[in-house]
């Protein structure tokens, strides 16, 4: 049964082998390739996110990624994602490949998303153009003016600590809300992108602190809602996008009844209002090229460096900790680790770094501590050179260098006790890859050919069985020959008789007549004695005739036997005959043997 199943599977597999590559994309077969453009929302408000999806039905992938739709006129590109879906719809496969382009609307108006062309499944398909409406404010939220909330009632200002900075010079930007309305809550709808800056949000410790402020002669409730430290990454004029929040304000209903007014404020409702700050331009001035020290760290601000060791005397091969403390103002976080200019027989380990930074009052300052573990390998009085860090002072508009004092270290101990100075390290894995193919003899064999299909298997399987059967037969034969004399003699009779006749025939050519006839006579008598299991010597002619008669041997055979024997006896004692007579006797003797064998055979 398993063989039958295997064989059937093998046939099926061979039949399918060619079809496998064609089979795998089969789900898509039968489904026409088509494409369309889908918008996740329409209309959208300005500064709102929307997605343009290119949906291609009937394929699991595209031959080439289509270009990003050119919507620069009214939207900013914000990323792409792709997905595939496979579903069964009404019993048929529905495969879709979707490329989703995310945008943020920037301009108000009606815009057309142009047709897209894509190559998939061996053909080119086009989508229809789609019209998108961008409204001035999110459709869900009401515009500031509509509910009685005018831009004078609620607005955002942006206040930078300075408008002209050097690269990497800290700059704190505050976003402040002014309102005459009752703001219940607000949420940030679009944090402005800070391209060109390294930005660090400065947390507002107790949330926005509300205060009264006068703006253009009007008293407003005001609070800083966002404070961010910016570090410009390169020179040039940079624009910070508007910061937009969605505020939920409580406004009085226009058509409140007299009673409502009478009983304090009347009916109110909350409405969403989108409020944006103005964009902010920052000019980043390039650092002067001349006077830049070799140890310049890129820091713009002020720096102070100090260094100390935990002990001034140390044994060779023992660890000593060198602490370098850097304090100052500026982007300390991006400060590179100071390079120690030590002798080669100092072993230096990667420093442990701790930092404490404070950001407040428009300044970013703090300190950074590097703890180096050093192991001096040779004794003597050693000097740890000063640590130098170059920086740019924006107030003085020039470069400066901060340096620590050199430190003297007494290293005691024996030179001879030095261990090997070569540093050991583990084998580093640079990238992960699959292991290489095997190049040697692939040792191919026909697929789907099991062990049982190999002729060698069946030969090996049956060889011992056949051999055992043969051996069993042989053994039985041998045992009978040994145990059953009559049977053994019977089995041997013909063989012995023929051997004797052969001997006689070889004598026939020679002259010794007596031996020839004696041999023929012995062959015949011996045969009969073996067959009848009696003594050869006692088998006289009369006795033989009687016994043959008892065994039902035909009289003709018996008389032929007796005639043969008689002529042998006669010739033995009166040798007269020639070669012809001998041949004749042999022929007769063989006939007698055949006749007797047939008559006595079992």
């Amino acid at each position: 049964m398993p063989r039958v199943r295997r064989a059937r599977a093998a046939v099926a597999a061979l039949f399918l082998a060619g079809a496998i590559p064609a089979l795998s994309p089969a789900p898509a077969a039968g489904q026409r390739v088509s494409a369309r453009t889908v918008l996740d929302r329409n209309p959208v408000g300005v500064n709102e996110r929307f997605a343009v999806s290119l949906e291609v039905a009937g394929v699991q992938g595209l031959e080439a990624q289509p270009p990003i739709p050119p919507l620069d006129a009214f939207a900013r590109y914000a990323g792409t994602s792709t997905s595939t879906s496979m579903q069964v719809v009404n019993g048929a496969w529905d495969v879709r490949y979707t490329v989703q382009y995310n945008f943020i609307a920037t301009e108000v108006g009606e815009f057309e998303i142009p047709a897209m062309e894509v190559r998939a499944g061996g053909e080119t398909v086009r989508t229809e153009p789609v019209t998108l409406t961008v409204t001035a404010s999110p459709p869900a939220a009401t515009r500031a003016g509509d509910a009685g909330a005018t831009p004078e009632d609620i607005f955002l200002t942006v206040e930078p600590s300075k408008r002209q900075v050097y690269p990497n010079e800290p700059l704190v930007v505050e976003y402040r809300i002014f309102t005459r309305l009752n703001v219940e809550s607000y949420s940030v709808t679009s944090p402005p992108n800070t391209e060109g800056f390294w930005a660090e949000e400065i947390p507002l410790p107790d949330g926005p602190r509300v205060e009264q402020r006068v703006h253009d002669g009007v008293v407003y409730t005001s609070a800083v809602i966002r404070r961010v430290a910016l570090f410009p990454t390169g020179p040039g004029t940079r624009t910070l996008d508007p910061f937009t929040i969605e505020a939920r304000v409580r406004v009085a209903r226009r058509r409140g009844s007299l009673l409502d007014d009478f009983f304090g404020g009347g009916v109110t409702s909350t409405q969403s209002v989108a409020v944006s700050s103005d964009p902010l331009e920052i000019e980043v001035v390039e650092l002067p090229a001349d006077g830049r020290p070799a140890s310049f760290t890129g820091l713009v601000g002020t720096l102070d460096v100090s260094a100390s060791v935990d002990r001034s005397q140390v044994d060779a091969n023992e660890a000593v900790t060198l602490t370098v403390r850097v304090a100052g103002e500026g982007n300390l976080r991006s400060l590179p680790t100071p390079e120690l200019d030590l002798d080669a027989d100092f072993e230096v380990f990667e420093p442990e770094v701790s930092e404490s930074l404070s950001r407040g009052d428009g300044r970013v300052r703090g300190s950074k501590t590097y703890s180096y573990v050093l192991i001096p390998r040779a004794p003597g009085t050693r000097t740890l050179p000063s640590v130098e860090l170059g920086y740019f002072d924006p107030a003085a508009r020039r470069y400066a260098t901060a340096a620590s004092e050199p430190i003297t270290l007494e290293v005691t101990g024996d030179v001879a006790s030095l261990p090997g100075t070569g540093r050991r390290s583990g084998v580093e894995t640079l990238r992960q890859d699959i292991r290489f193919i095997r190049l040697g003899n692939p040792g191919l064999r026909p697929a789907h050919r099991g062990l049982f299909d190999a002729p060698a298997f069946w030969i090996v399987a049956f060889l011992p069985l056949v051999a055992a059967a043969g051996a069993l037969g042989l053994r039985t034969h041998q045992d009978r020959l040994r145990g059953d004399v009559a049977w053994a003699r019977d089995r041997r009779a013909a063989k012995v008789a023929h051997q004797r006749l052969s001997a006689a025939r070889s004598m026939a050519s020679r002259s010794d007549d007596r031996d020839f006839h004696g041999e023929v006579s012995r062959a015949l008598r011996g045969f009969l004695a073996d067959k009848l299991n009696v003594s050869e010597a006692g088998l006289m002619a009369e006795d033989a005739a009687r016994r043959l008669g008892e065994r039902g041997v035909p009289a003709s055979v018996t008389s032929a036997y007796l005639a043969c024997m008689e002529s042998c006896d006669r010739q033995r004692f009166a040798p007269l005959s020639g070669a012809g007579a001998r041949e004749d006797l042999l022929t007769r003797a063989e006939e007698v043997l055949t006749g007797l064998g047939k008559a006595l055979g079992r």
Partner: protein
Amino acid sequence: MTDRRTAAPAVALAALFALAAPALAQEEIVLEGNRLYQAGEYARALDAYRQVAEAGFESATLYYNLGNAHFKTGDLPRAILNYERAARMAPGAEDVRANLDLARSLTVDDIEPLQDFWLVAAVRWWVDLVPRALLAWTVAAGWLLAGAAVLGLILGRSPGLRRASARGGLIAAAVVVIFGMNLAVRELGRGRAAEGVILVREVAAQSAPSPDPNLTVFSIHAGTKVRLDEVSDGWAEVVLEDGRVGWVPTVSFERI
């Protein structure tokens, strides 16, 4: 009798050579594929390996190289499929295991496999322990030795020979029984579940062999290995390594 004894191995040898001749030509193609792979022409190497596989030949090395070529051409699920096939033919191959693990780590579905019952794990370890060729030769040698021992028992006259035959025959018979069961399991695939690898990017697994979207229980992704419990009528009941069961269309996977 003597004639048959000498004739049988001769026939076997002739049969082996008849099989080996086309295999030698295919071997050349594999070696050419190896050269292409080494030169970084993975797509052409892939074609060479595939040509041999489609001509109806297989070996653990061929499947391993084929898996590598698929991996390098970015077809992760087929790479996994071929590594699995190589692992089936050569369960102890360390390179296959390493690449399979790496390829699996890149697939979408991260499935926590169920812990096997220790006895099942032990049996599986034992079945996969000896390489197939060595196993076959061991069983064949044991069988022939057992046969020789039986001959000695039947024909032997001296008690010493008979005793030695009996002892040797018992040992040989034990070898045949133990390794023979192992070989039978390997050859017949009994006790070893059919498995497949998902080749489509994503397929919904249904609670019944029906495309009704209300019956979707989970979805699996390309490269995930599944056990096939039942296959009928274009649908297969698959079991994930964490034991979850669902029906998927048979076109979504390929058998290992």
